[in-house]
């Protein structure tokens, strides 16, 4: 699934790396516990989270993730966005809560959960 399709499905706003919106992703993982992301998420997944701090971006980097989706309309700080931008990670913000955002993506049938 293209990141641009995710953006449309979630009515999301792109905060950085628009040029990567055509990239393909195959799986997603939603969590606020970064240790669980490290333990269970597969590499290259999309990360869906409500947690706002630079460690979210570094966690995503450890797993070569290409896209982070912040839910509940939470705006990440400029520090978070610039760290993501430097590392080519698309940052999306959606007004949907985590359950709804995840459900919409799951229902698309185009992303796996592992």
């Amino acid at each position, binding site marked *: 699934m293209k990141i641009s399709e995710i953006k449309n499905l979630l009515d999301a706003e792109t905060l950085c790396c628009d040029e990567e919106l055509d990239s393909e992703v195959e799986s997603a993982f939603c969590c*606020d*516990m*970064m*240790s*669980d992301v*490290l*333990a269970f998420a597969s*590499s290259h997944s999309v990360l869906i*989270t409500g*947690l706002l*701090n*630079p*460690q*979210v971006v*570094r*966690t995503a*980097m*450890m*797993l*070569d993730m290409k896209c982070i989706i912040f839910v509940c309309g939470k705006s990440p700080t400029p*520090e978070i966005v610039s760290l993501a931008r430097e590392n080519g990670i698309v940052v999306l913000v959606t007004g949907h809560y985590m359950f709804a955002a995840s459900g919409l993506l799951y229902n698309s049938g185009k992303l796996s959960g592992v």
Partner: protein
Amino acid sequence: MDPLKIHFEVDGEDFSSAGEASVEMKKKLRQLGIPADVIRRCSIAMYEGEINMVIHAHGGTADVEVYPDRIVIILEDHGPGIPDIDLAMQEGYSTANDRIHNMGFGAGMGLPNMKRYTEDMTVESTVGVGTKVTMTVKL
């Protein structure tokens, strides 16, 4: 053969920079052409260990040694030490406070994750002196 050695200072005062050494290590390993799966396991183990040094031990040092057949990561700090290592190794055990939870850590999965993703891990710790974690990932 002498290993290639990479040294990192891990700042314990600045929470927002926690993880920078792991990011650097990952970049270096990629430059060296280390296989992706090995980089992934080293990155996860080092990141959890680095976060532990920041949140539990006021920072420390990380030394990464690259041998032809393995990567060894040594994390050393002069923090409070771990009174009961077996207990600390249990999934879910944590002494973390809310400040740490707000960072997305403190679920007590760090040390178990480090063990899970490395072939060998030893924890040496003395209360009041510090902690040394040595991890080996085979190439």
